[in-house]
Structures are given as C-alpha cells and as structure tokens.
C-alpha cells in the first residue's frame, strides 16, 4: 500500500472515529488491521478514543488496540510461515 493511500485511509478512519458509532468504527479497525499489513495506526486510534471520549484519563482503548495488533501480528506470522 502506497503512502498516500495510507494517509487517505488514516483521514477516513479519523472521520469515522468522530462521526460513526464506536462499535462500527471498531469493526472497521478490526477489518483494516487484518487486511492492511502492519496497521499500527490502530494503536493511535485507540489512543484517540481515550483522549476524545474517556472522562477518567484511562487508557482502555489504547491497551485493547495494542494487544489486538500484537495478536494480529503474531497470527499473521504463524499463517505465513
């Protein structure tokens, strides 16, 4: 995937975080994490959810996103070797 495609995708998902229901954005992020190689942006979007919407200064979204991308990364390696 080219850098400009990735940037456009980033902006599109950013708008999704702001406008779409959180569960729909989560489904989109799961799909992108599986489809796009090394989709580390999902960690940033977890952080964005926490910063914009979490009132208690917790990092639930960030932690879930990081654990998820690490699992995806592990599964990808297993599937391809």
């Amino acid at each position: 995937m080219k850098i400009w495609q990735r940037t456009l995708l980033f902006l599109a998902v950013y708008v999704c975080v702001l406008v779409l229901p959180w569960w729909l954005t989560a489904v989109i992020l799961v799909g992108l994490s599986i489809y796009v190689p090394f989709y580390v942006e999902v960690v940033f979007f977890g952080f964005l959810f926490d910063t914009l919407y979490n009132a208690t200064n917790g990092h639930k979204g960030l932690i879930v996103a990081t654990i998820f991308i690490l699992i995806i990364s592990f599964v990808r390696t297993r599937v391809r070797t």
Partner: protein
Amino acid sequence: MVLGRQVNQYWFRNILIVLFFVSLIFCGFLFPNALKNFFETAGRPVWSTGNFASSAFGNVYNFFSLQKNLVARNKILEDQVNTLNLKVIDYDTVQKENQDLKNLLGRKDMSDRILSKVLSRPPQSPYDTLVIDIGSDYDINPGDKVYISDNIIVGIITNVTPHTSLVELFSGSSKKTESVLERTGASYEISGRGGANFSVDVPKDADILWGDVFTYPELTDSVLGSVYYIDTNSQSSFKTIFIRTPGNIFQSEWVFVEK
C-alpha cells in the same frame, strides 16, 4: 534463512508497536490537555458537519410514510400536546410556589445556566460521555452540572478545553451516584449501567415501586431517573431496581450547563 528473517521482522514490528504504545502513554501523561485540545479542535468542524448532515437527511424516512399513518399519528400527538399543556400550567404554578417558598426561607437559587450544543454523543463515544461546544471561553469548569431540561440532570463536566467540554454522564458504566428516592426520602447509591440506565440492589422489603423517581441531592431537586423494572428473585434476599433517565439523552441536540 528466510524463516529467520521473517522472525526478526516479526520481533522488530512488535517492538515498534510497543514503543509506539509507550510513547503515546507518555504523551498522554505529559500533555493531557494539549492533546485533548488539539484533537477536539480538529474534530469540531467534522462533528458540526456530521450533526448538520444527520439533521438535514434525518427526515427522509418521514417523506415516504403513508398519509393514513401520518394522520393517525398526528391525532395521537395532538391529544398528547393538549394533555401536556395542562401539565405545564400545573408545573409552572408549582415551580413558582417552590421558588417563592425558598425566597421566604432565604435560600435563593444562585445558579446560572448556559445553553450548549452537543457535538458528540453515544454511540460515537464508547464511554457514555458527551462533547459540548462550550469550554473555558464561557467560564465552564470541571464539576459544573449538565441538564437536558429544567429538572433532568444527566452528568457533570470533567474536562474543559478552550472551546469544548467533556461531560461524563452519571449512567457511565460502574459510576456510582448518590441519589434520593423522592417519595420516601431514602438515600441510595445507584450504579451506572451505560446508555442512560442505572441499577441498585436493595433488600427485598425496601419500599420502591415502578415509576418512583430518584433525584440528585441538592437544593433544587433534579431528576436522575425513574424506576422502569424491578427484578425480584425468590432465592435472593435482595431485589435489583432498574432506573432510566427520562427523555432521550442520545437524541438531545442541546444541554444546559449550570455554573
């Protein structure tokens, strides 16, 4: 050889992910307000456009409704409006009487309310929070109370940026709020269950009925919610009371912030 390179690449990527995670945690810790301010300022035009688009296209469904259904619905709504008009007159009278009594007793309500537009609400937010379009520019402070009508309180301000504020709803998951049962005056700590719902476990013989109103304890009682279901289990000595905020928080476009 190829397998070894892939394993190395796997570990390199994982280390990058963890480093990114740690750097975001540090950024959030070092500059919490600056980041919130930046993201909310960047999000404000998108939220405004999204709200405008949803209100503009939200009535498309009604355009295709059958005339017969619309006439029947109109009749029901007219009846409701007539009934509610009578209740409003009663309400205004009682409210004026209440205010006069407080003035007589020397307890003046000094609160000041500011109208604010809701920029983002659940289900956009997974945490039962609202983002509203006023912040420190209107002298809003953390702890200010937020209402969706004159007497229905829904949450408090927790974070303020120059042009936006974050409202934490009382119904947020696992959030506990002190409340008073209006009919008996008993105090209960109700727990948020998300989506404008609360619950509380009470002994089976506690005097709570369907429709009872729970209020926020302050000088002017504000409604937190009313009982819509009571779950009684024959094997337990407790019953669970389910409470819901009146009105629909998630469709209100405006809220009032009390300073």
